[in-house]
């Protein structure tokens, strides 16, 4: 394989990583910082994509579509927090698992009921379609570049929000001792509703942005869910920086694994068998990565060690 192709693939890996980060961003807030297990995160991602697709079809405007995705998902997030999650903070994590599992069922089938069983259309806007030529003769999709930029912006924004602002401190304090932060005069319920909605909105945004180059269909959120959890856990729960680095690691490992393993096996195997074995192993790779990271750093790369 030529060096230039290798670099291009590395770039693809990084790009995939940033995209993963964008998908994980909302979950970083809800799970990483607020400490809520929200399996329905993928559903919010899906809701965002469906809202965007519907609005795009109705109005023809991509900007409006993106806006709709954020608003719709945030709205659903707020409703979910207000009517359900709020009652579960004091409970076991496992109750959150069951409740959000139930929400997946409701959201998925609800979406199918409203939109039917066939995928929807959502495409890249004219302005961002096509490729740009990067130095070294690499053609790069303009839209993917845009996703990278947005992912980075969201990352920086989240980092500042969580580590530098009072709101961030309060959220983290609430995760640690909800009763206590209330006793100090903070209306943690209202704060949590807003943050949950923000996390949901980010999920929706990711759903719409990524949905434009993937398929908008029921069930699109589930694979994302697990990947997003993997990313956050590798990085260390509660750390935005960790989530970002975790996402890049996963993106690069997955991409390079997919590309290089079949080639490696091809050196001593028949091509089509090598392709198949290599691809199988590469599917396991990110889980292997997670397991190895956690075996050596039991609280993720940037997680604080729990006492």
């Amino acid at each position, binding site marked *: *394989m*030529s060096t230039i*192709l290798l670099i*291009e*693939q590395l770039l*693809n*890996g990084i*790009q*995939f990583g940033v*995209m993963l980060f964008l998908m994980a961003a909302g979950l970083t807030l809800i799970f990483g910082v607020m400490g809520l297990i929200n399996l329905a995160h993928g559903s919010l991602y899906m809701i965002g994509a469906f809202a965007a697709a519907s609005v795009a079809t109705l109005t023809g405007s991509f900007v409006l579509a993106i806006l709709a995705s954020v608003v719709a998902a945030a709205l659903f997030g707020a409703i979910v927090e207000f009517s359900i999650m709020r009652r579960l903070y004091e409970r076991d994590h496992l109750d959150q698992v069951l409740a959000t599992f139930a929400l997946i069922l409701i959201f*998925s*089938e609800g979406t*199918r009921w409203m939109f039917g*069983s*066939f*995928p*929807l*259309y959502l*495409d*890249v806007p004219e302005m961002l*379609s*096509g*490729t740009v030529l990067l130095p070294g003769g690499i*053609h790069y*999709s303009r*839209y*993917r570049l845009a996703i990278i930029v947005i992912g980075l912006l969201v990352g920086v924004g989240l980092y500042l929000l969580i580590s530098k602002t009072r709101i961030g401190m309060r959220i983290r304090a609430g995760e640690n001792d909800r009763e206590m932060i209330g006793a100090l005069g903070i209306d943690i319920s209202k704060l949590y509703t807003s943050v949950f909605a923000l996390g949901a909105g980010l999920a929706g945004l990711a759903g719409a942005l*990524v949905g*434009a*180059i*993937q*398929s*908008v*269909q*029921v*069930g*699109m959120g589930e*694979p994302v869910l697990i990947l997003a959890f993997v990313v956050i856990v590798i990085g260390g729960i509660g750390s935005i920086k960790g989530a970002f680095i975790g996402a890049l690691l996963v993106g690069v490992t997955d*991409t390079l694994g*997919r*590309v290089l393993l*079949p080639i490696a096996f091809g050196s001593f195997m028949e*091509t*089509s068998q090598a*392709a*198949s074995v*290599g*691809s*199988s192993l*590469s*599917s396991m790779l990110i889980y292997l990565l997670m397991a190895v990271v956690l075996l050596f750093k039991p609280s993720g790369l940037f997680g604080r060690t729990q006492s």
Partner: protein
Amino acid sequence: DNKVKVGMITTLSGGGAGLGIDVHDGFMLAIAQSGNKNIEVVVEDDQRKPDVAVQLADQMIQSEKVDVLTGIIWSNLAMAVIPSATAQGKIYLSPNAGPSVLAGKGCHPNYFNVAWQNDELHEAAGAYATDEGYGKSFILAPNYPAGKDALTGYKRYFKGEIAGELYTKLGQTDYAAELAQIRASDADSVFFFLPGGMGISFLKQYSGSGIELPVVGPAFSFDQGILQAVGDAALGIKNTSQWNKDIDNPTNAAFVESFQAEYGRLPSLYASQGFDTANLLLSAMDKAEVDDTEAFRAALKLADFKSVRGDFKFGNNQHPVQDIYVREVIKEGDVYTNKIIATALSDHADSYAADCSL
């Protein structure tokens, strides 16, 4: 009397529901049109989970006491259900999945496939690519048995070289790395089998990648159900199918029209398969009692019904022997659809029939 009870196990919820719904709707349309009151259909959702499908089959056989089973979309579910159902003396009519084992060594007198053997559309794609004079194809499919069958099928009929061969992860949604490899290769054509959402993602990303190579594939990524979601990215792409809405015969014209009237959308190849499956069953009911298995099987094997594909006949392994067409994705008004541009294989029988002892 000769009342027939049919158990339909198909995928009605979750991501792959569109296919099951199409098969179901096509099937039910034919039943309704026949006006035959002697047939009762029990429908259950397999959720695309093989263990659920097995349990539903148990339920249909043990409690519902159905005579005929049908409906399964996916090969892995088919493999879980069909062998034991046929072993228990039930007739199984496959409206979609056609795993190679059941066409060859594992064929069974009670098993009829009304759609195709899994490799067939890919074989046709290979034949078409050869006809077009492509010399070097880059081929890819998901890493699961049906995916491997696909690449095997393509290679079986493609006379050129393989520029690259890739298996992607099942359910993969991002293809940047694969696209980079395609661009870097010296291929002159691309063949892919990526059913459902995977295909939509691939095509959208392909069209945004600036790669200009011609693409061929089986109909599974270009069926009526997903074309609208792919949009312009699919325009002009050639794909192979045993059916299309413009196959010129009265049955098909009536089917397309009545399906659209009934359900408000154009039928897909899956719907056509469901429709044919029901009509095949109805034709056999006219000829024999379902309790007389021997006679009923014979009646099925005759395939004396009007297929939307035109002539329809079974080979020795009870899989269709049929023409496979090349279609091109076009836009009719606002709707993306296909039109037939050539015939890739005529009277094509699958490659496993010889292994079948029937």
